[in-house]
């Protein structure tokens, strides 16, 4: 609360920043809760198959599709979901993804991508940060905002969480969320703030802001002091934070 405000001055009261931070984190956590169901499904498959003493094959992952479809057809904001396998994990396919995507008429169908490393320009998911970070650092990750024109064909975010079995990295469970969907949830929260506010990702790129001064996707350079910017962690492990600057 600004120092010049007195108790009793409720109408002009700045909203409780802790509450705002929680509300901004909520949609992110909700997407990860959906992904957790898919991750569990992958863990179950791996445990069952390897328990029978053989390696997992691509066909074993078929049971994940209905689970992924369930996350897409709910009232959530997900337009794509599934699992993406660590190269070399499956017995029969070097690289593989079991990924479902909503068509524009709202039905889930498989997302088909060219993932053959020998081809002209493969969809090299093994190089993408939403796959690399869970693999290399064992933690969940949100890639973007970016226009995934070779894949989901949307401007949005890719959420991913690592799946391990017996200490080995199996792959990620993940989901695509269009930025427009997330924005419609986040903006009303940001609108309550009396300052210029931008929710930024780990690269300090704008996810959503309550002012045109921060363009979606643009990197924000916030130096110390001028203008004074407060940085409030929103989802600390993802590196998402809220930048607050006094309005002019």
């Amino acid at each position: 609360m600004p120092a010049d405000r007195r108790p009793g001055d409720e109408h002009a009261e700045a909203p409780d920043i802790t509450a705002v931070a929680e509300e901004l984190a909520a949609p992110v956590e909700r997407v990860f809760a959906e992904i957790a169901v898919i991750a569990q499904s992958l863990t179950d498959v791996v445990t069952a198959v390897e328990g029978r003493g053989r390696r997992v094959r691509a066909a074993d992952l078929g049971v994940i599709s209905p689970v992924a479809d369930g996350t897409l057809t709910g009232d959530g904001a997900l337009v794509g979901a599934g699992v993406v396998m660590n190269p070399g994990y499956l017995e029969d396919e070097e690289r593989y993804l079991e990924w479902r995507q909503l068509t524009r008429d709202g039905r889930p169908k498989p997302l088909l991508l060219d993932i053959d490393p020998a081809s002209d320009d493969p969809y090299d998911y093994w190089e993408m940060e939403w796959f690399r970070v869970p693999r290399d650092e064992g933690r969940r990750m949100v890639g973007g905002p970016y226009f995934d024109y070779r894949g989901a064909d949307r401007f949005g975010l890719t959420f991913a969480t690592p799946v391990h079995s017996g200490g080995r990295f199996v792959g990620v469970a993940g989901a695509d969320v269009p930025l427009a969907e997330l924005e419609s949830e986040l903006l009303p929260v940001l609108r309550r703030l009396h300052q210029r506010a931008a929710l930024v990702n780990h690269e300090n790129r704008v996810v959503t802001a309550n002012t045109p001064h921060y363009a979606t996707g643009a990197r924000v350079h916030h130096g110390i002091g001028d203008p004074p910017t407060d940085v409030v962690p929103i989802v600390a492990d993802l590196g998402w934070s809220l930048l607050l600057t006094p309005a002019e």
Partner: protein
Amino acid sequence: MVDNGRVTARTTVFSPLSSGGRTEAVIQRITESVALGLLADGEQLPSETELSAQLGVSTVTLREALASLREQGVVETKRGRNGGSFIRAPGDPTKAVIRARLAAFSVSDLRDAGDELASVSGMAARLASSRASTDNVRRLLTLSERVAAVSGVGERTRADSRFHIEVAVAAASERLTRAEVSLQAELGVLLWLPTSTEQEAREAADQHRAIAMAISREDADLARQLAEQHVERNTHKLIEARIELHGGGTRAR
């Protein structure tokens, strides 16, 4: 999900067409995508029902478009259990074919298309300087070199176009990306000839690299300027080639 491990449909190809769906628009979208290698030789198209839903056109319109694409030899339809429509990507075009495509443009058409490409590419480069993610920059630097690393008309054309499309992707702009794809399909396919030299490919790669470096250094003005100059040089080359198609006379530079 993958028929034979080989796969692939690039979904951007099948996203809804902007204003109403017309046969010509479907034909153009598929022809463009084949020219840029977004659809590969032998790739199976989704079923008619799925494809018409994805493109947002009626099945009647789609069938008309497919019939025309079959006539042009771009699509082949096989009957039976493993039937469907498949892409038949033409081999590398000959110089005569590329010159015939070029002849379809007037000099003023080329100037006009070049202006549009310069504005889209310049703006994309400027915006990419403040919006590119680390992933985008990595991919831009990789793609910038590719035009000099490959050989043959088809591969060079695709490598060149991919770089420019990626700049628009790095600008985090869906519309600029679609505009760049469409312009690359129109103009990009005129740029490389079987007679193009290693030296020319090297120059293109150097220019791509300079643009990618300016973007990675967040130098928006320089990135824009370099991208515009790059397009202007290419347009200049195309106009020069177009003028020469008239034969006779001497070369006036």
